[in-house]
């Protein structure tokens, strides 16, 4: 320890510098310890800056490009993969993170198109990108929409299928390939698999994924309406559509199956809906007829059903009950055409096997069917 005399300032002068000639051993040790700690902190900061916990914080434009082209740069694993089969990435491919979206945040994935899926009872989306290990620009997006029910999945599938494309039908689902994409309706799931291009690498991968998805996602028997339209009437399944709600822009018209037996070039559309009992079917048919009548004038009768002639288009529509089913036609060019197609539908219902009819139950409860606000045109 320095004494008082030795504390005279050596270099004087500005009063800020230390001026003692000597320091105790303890002071020196403390000083060295502090220096060592500071060096350690400096080293840690340098190391951490090179090994950040969240690399995206430091990502600039050029770094992002590297992420895009360096295989393995994107972390695998991630969220619960839900019903996605485990072996989507076969040899030569790898999976990126699995993402999930529900009805509340579907817009984060697919803003502008989210309402389309919600209209079909959307529950959850499971999404994973499969990347080619040789070229990370070659990708396949697997989007698996849980629609809650087979009919909803088929409805969403039908709505996204180009009218010219004929799907392949099995007892447990529908699927088709379309250039760079594969579409499947399987059980309650609507699955879109979208390739980055239509080259041979992608198309081969799509075919492999079809096998994987069919094997890994349990199918369910197609709804009763397919049995009626395809099995009984022999209509191409690509012409069938399903509307869980707001059919014909009418808020009370739910759970409606429609078919265009004459193809996309004709406006004629047949429809059918299962009700809990004959009385409800009659009541709903009257309500539908009233709604059709608001846009037209009486158009005579066809196959025991009163028609309405649209005041703007001049096309004929009509609806009536058959037992506990509600059958109808829209967009017929004339009464004769309406009668012919309605007759076919009535016959198909009459001749349908009893087990098919037993499967035809309303997708919504009777109470819900009775509800519904004013018509929305």
């Amino acid at each position: 320890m320095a004494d008082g005399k030795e504390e005279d300032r050596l270099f004087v002068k500005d009063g800020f510098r230390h001026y003692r000639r000597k320091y105790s051993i303890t002071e020196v040790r403390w000083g060295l310890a502090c220096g060592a700690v500071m060096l350690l902190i400096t080293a840690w900061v340098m190391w951490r800056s090179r090994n950040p916990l969240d690399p995206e914080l430091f990502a600039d434009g050029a770094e992002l490009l590297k992420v895009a082209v360096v295989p393995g740069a994107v972390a695998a694993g991630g969220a619960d993969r839900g019903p996605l089969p485990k072996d989507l990435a076969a040899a030569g491919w790898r999976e990126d993170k699995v993402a999930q979206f529900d009805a509340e945040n579907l817009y984060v994935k697919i803003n502008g198109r989210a309402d389309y899926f919600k209209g079909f009872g959307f529950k959850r989306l499971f999404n994973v990108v499969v990347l080619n290990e040789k070229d990370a620009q070659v990708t396949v997006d697997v989007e698996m929409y849980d629609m809650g029910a087979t009919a909803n999945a088929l409805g969403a599938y039908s709505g996204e299928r180009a009218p010219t494309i004929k799907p392949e039908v099995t007892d447990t689902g529908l699927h088709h390939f379309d250039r760079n994409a594969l579409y499947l309706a399987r059980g309650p799931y609507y699955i879109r698999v979208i390739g980055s291009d239509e080259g041979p690498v992608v198309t081969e991968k799509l075919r492999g994924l079809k096998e994987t998805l069919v094997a890994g996602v349990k199918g369910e028997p197609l709804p009763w309406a397919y049995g009626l339209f395809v099995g009984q009437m022999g209509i191409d399944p690509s012409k069938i559509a399903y509307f869980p709600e707001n059919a014909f822009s009418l808020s009370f018209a739910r759970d409606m199956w429609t078919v265009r037996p004459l193809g996309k070039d004709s406006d004629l559309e047949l429809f059918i809906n299962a009700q809990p009992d004959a009385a409800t079917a009659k009541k709903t048919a009257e309500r539908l007829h009233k709604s059709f009548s608001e846009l037209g004038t009486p158009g005579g009768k066809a196959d025991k059903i009163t028609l309405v002639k649209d005041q703007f288009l001049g096309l004929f529509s009509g609806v009536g009950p058959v037992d506990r089913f509600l059958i109808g036609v829209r967009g017929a060019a004339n009464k004769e055409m309406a009668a012919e197609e309605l007759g076919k539908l009535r016959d198909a219902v009459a001749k349908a096997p009893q087990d098919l009819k037993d499967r035809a139950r309303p997708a919504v409860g009777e109470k819900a069917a009775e509800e519904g606000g004013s018509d929305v045109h």
Partner: protein
Amino acid sequence: MSTDHDALRAQERRQFLKQAAVVGAATVGAGYVSIAPATWPGSLKDLDGERGKPQTPTLRLPQNGYAVAASTVLPHMGVARGTRVAAMVRAAVDAIGGIGRFVQRGDVVLIKPNVAFERPAVLGATTHPEILTALIHLVREGGASEIRVADNPIESPQSCFVRSGIQQAAVTAGARVYLPSPGEFQTLNVPGATWIEKWPFFWRPFQGVNKVIGVSPVKDHNLCRASMTTKNWYGLLGGRRNQFHQDIHGIIADLALMIRPTFVLLDGSRVLFRSGPTGGSLSDVKAGQTIVASTDSLAADAFGWAELLERKEENLPAYFAKAAARKTGDPNYKGRHIKEIQVGG
């Protein structure tokens, strides 16, 4: 004694009256500010609590946006047809006066592509990088000192910019890419707007900018029927913007009010004519072989609706009329001066 007492009482009375007057005035004042309707001067009434919230500073874009002076001689729209994108971009812009009319030496130019989705560009859901590259080169020729590219995508910004190819195209062509992060939004005041009079706006890339160019694909849209150059500005909004889909036509009309661009490019080289705005299948995309440059977004969009989406038999989506009513453009493109150019053979 009596005189002193009287004087003291008089003084106390005066004191009392003064104090009573002060207390009375204070009571009346306090009563007024607390009871007076919110529109009266000095009123503190705050029934919904809005006045009590901290006031965040709001921004305003320039009075006339980023538009250049209108021309009575030059066409308002240039339509280039062909297959060579770079030449078509140049031809379309030349048709409305050339890049020199819009970009001067030293300008800081912001280009706003549509990078909304994590899709390869070939699927038509995003601006194609080829047209962005051509546009950046053209703007560089005009003398711009800095070119910025920015968008606030629907999905993860990094993923969208990378997979759409926009990141690569922008960086390679020498532009600076701005990806959104929460600190880069500020409240923008758009006078007259219905939904976004005050709304979070992707502000950072706009700092110091004096020219703004939009470049968007031509897309079918599930809700608003068509997404083109006007809808493209949606990518500058922050906050819970998905709620605007309740009035999609109203918000697009607001967007037309929000940004007055220097000019817009409508990329009709590929058209997503079905399953928009996300698409997926190449069958949903057709070759349009057209690029449109215009100083009027509504006119360009109306052209895209009729000629590229081929929906001239259908009425225009409602947002056209709403936006036109605010004098943000004129969708009647046919009755005005258009120059069409065939590029190549």
